[in-house]
């Protein structure tokens, strides 16, 4: 029987040869991810349901990456960091990346990749909807709530409905004015925020495989914005090189069989696409940047799991080099590694940090920061009637803080070009 890559991975985790789309299966989980917002309530449920003295099913397989509310004076948020620490100590969990130590990494989805937790063919569940990011490594990654996470914590198992798959094929050579963010916003505009609900989104084609891992992660990261259970890109030599640089763990490369069944297939020629933006208040509210280019913005934000990687900053630096921003522009590296790369990575003879500083950007320490609003003292949080152009992944009402503000989702190229002019601007204005 032919299967998609998602079916194959789930079959393997269910100790089966074949699983059918639509059937509910019990899976053995390879990694459980949690963070400071959902970890503490997950641990409470675990204690309550499994009883005092209960043991975590496999301490090596639990990864705790605090990242949401890190640099805040909010007492409740700080208490959550303490609760993670207490649980990790109590259960002797080796993979706790504690705040305030040199083990702190930053935003979980990027840190999972950088620290070698992402392995082709494996199954990852996480208490965060953007856990689908890890699918860029030819693995199954999806988000769950606290109760499901507590169940995994005690048993190592969870039920899941095997998804149907949708295929998105991008062919051609990526123009220098397009980024992975433009591709996924294109898809969202085409299928809507529930266009892939309960399905796998499989990305394929020469343009996808020409992308570095960080850009591939931008594609899979936003599968959830279409309601997708997971986003997935089969592993290739680029994936293997990235993984082998970070871990010696073994893995299995799986791919979809020829003739595997898809719910639907979408084909794109990247040369025919344009820089796009998702206007307030929905990630599927797509417009070409040129069609909205007179829209005044009040802030630019370059950061988050989907838009705060080194590759995102290199793109922004290409535009910002030698220019000044005209609106407050906030740079938030996803991880400590990304922050360090701002110093070491050179563009045109200058470090990227220097280019950003010379352009007038503010640079924050790595965390989720204002991507989801957060406590009132969060760096970059939107205020009043702000209209923010942002490389983040959601722009629902109130998402970045202020209930009256709007967010325009865009690539780092577009966010940087718009920061200079103070209005939504096609990056080609600065690349020609």
């Amino acid at each position: 029987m032919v299967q998609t890559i998602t079916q194959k991975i789930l079959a393997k985790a269910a100790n089966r040869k074949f699983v059918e789309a639509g059937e509910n299966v019990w899976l053995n989980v390879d990694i459980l991810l949690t963070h400071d917002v959902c970890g503490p309530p997950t641990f409470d449920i675990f204690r309550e349901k499994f009883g005092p003295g209960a043991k975590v099913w496999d301490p090596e397989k639990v990864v705790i990456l605090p990242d949401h509310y890190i640099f805040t004076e909010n007492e409740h948020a700080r208490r959550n960091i303490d609760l993670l620490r207490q649980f990790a100590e109590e259960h002797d969990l080796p993979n706790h990346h504690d705040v305030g130590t040199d083990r702190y990494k930053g935003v979980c989805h990027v840190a999972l990749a950088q620290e070698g937790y992402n392995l082709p063919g494996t199954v990852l569940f996480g208490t965060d909807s953007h856990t689908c990011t890890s699918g860029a490594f030819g693995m199954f990654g999806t988000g769950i709530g606290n109760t499901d996470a507590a169940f995994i914590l005690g048993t190592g198992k969870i039920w899941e409905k095997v998804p149907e798959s949708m295929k998105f094929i991008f062919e051609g050579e990526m123009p220098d004015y397009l980024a992975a963010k433009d591709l996924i916003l294109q898809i969202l505009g085409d299928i809507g925020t529930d266009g892939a609900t309960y399905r796998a989104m499989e990305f394929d084609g020469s343009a996808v495989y020409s992308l570095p891992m960080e850009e591939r992660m931008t594609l899979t990261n936003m599968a959830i914005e279409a309601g997708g259970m997971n986003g997935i890109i089969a592993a290739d030599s680029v994936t293997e090189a990235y993984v082998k640089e970070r871990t010696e763990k073994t893995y299995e490369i799986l791919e979809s069989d020829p003739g595997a069944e898809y719910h639907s297939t979408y084909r794109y020629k990247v040369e025919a696409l344009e820089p796009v933006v998702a206007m307030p208040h929905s990630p599927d509210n797509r417009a070409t940047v040129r069609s909205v280019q007179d829209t005044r913005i009040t802030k630019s934000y370059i950061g988050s799991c989907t838009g705060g990687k080194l590759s995102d900053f290199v793109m922004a630096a290409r535009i910002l080099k030698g220019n000044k921003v005209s609106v407050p522009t906030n740079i938030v590296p996803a991880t400590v590694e990304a922050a360090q790369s701002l110093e070491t990575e050179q563009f045109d003879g200058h470090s990227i940090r220097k280019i950003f500083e010379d352009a007038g950007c503010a640079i924050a320490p790595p965390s989720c920061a204002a991507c989801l609003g957060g406590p009132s003292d969060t760096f970059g949080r939107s205020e009043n009637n702000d209209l923010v152009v942002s490389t983040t992944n959601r722009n629902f009402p109130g998402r970045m803080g202020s209930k009256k503000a709007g967010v325009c989702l865009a690539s780092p190229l577009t966010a940087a070009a718009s920061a200079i002019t103070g209005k939504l601007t096609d990056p080609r204005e600065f690349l020609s």
Partner: protein
Amino acid sequence: MESIIQGKAYVLGKNIDTDQIIPAEHLVYSLSDPEEVKLYGKYALSGVPAAEAGLPEGNRPFVEEGKFESEYSIIIAGPNFGCGSSREHAPFSLQVAGARAIVAESYARIFYRNCVDGGFVIPYETAEQLSKTVLTGDELRIDIENSSVTNLTQNVTYTLKPLGDVYKIVMAGGIFAYARQENLMNS
């Protein structure tokens, strides 16, 4: 689990995401401390833009200013209810505020799972566009065994989609109770 849920309807539109259900700044409160838990009720659905809160008129907050519980116990919504983040605080906050069931045209996956596995509120689906016909404040009665909802104010009954695979989990009160009942937690 009782077989009838009766109460007032609170009507919302489409794509109600979890940031509207419980804004991210409120995710810091304990979900186990009884005093802090009340805050989840207070802020339930507080992120919904005023004009879209309590349709068709709008400007009717789910929980009145200064209160911790809602007068509405059945939420009516369009497609893709609960999209966005995975926060289980979302269905939890609805439950704390007093919601018992949601009747929507469709749900986002993680929210749906959280409702069922955490045993917070029952997520019913229906092919009817109830958010266009039910008015906020209408008295509704859900018959769980017969998968139907009756609008007592308008005297009309609609069919709900059967809960299917998750019926047993809903009836058990969540995934832990279900797993114990089915002996799934010993292996």
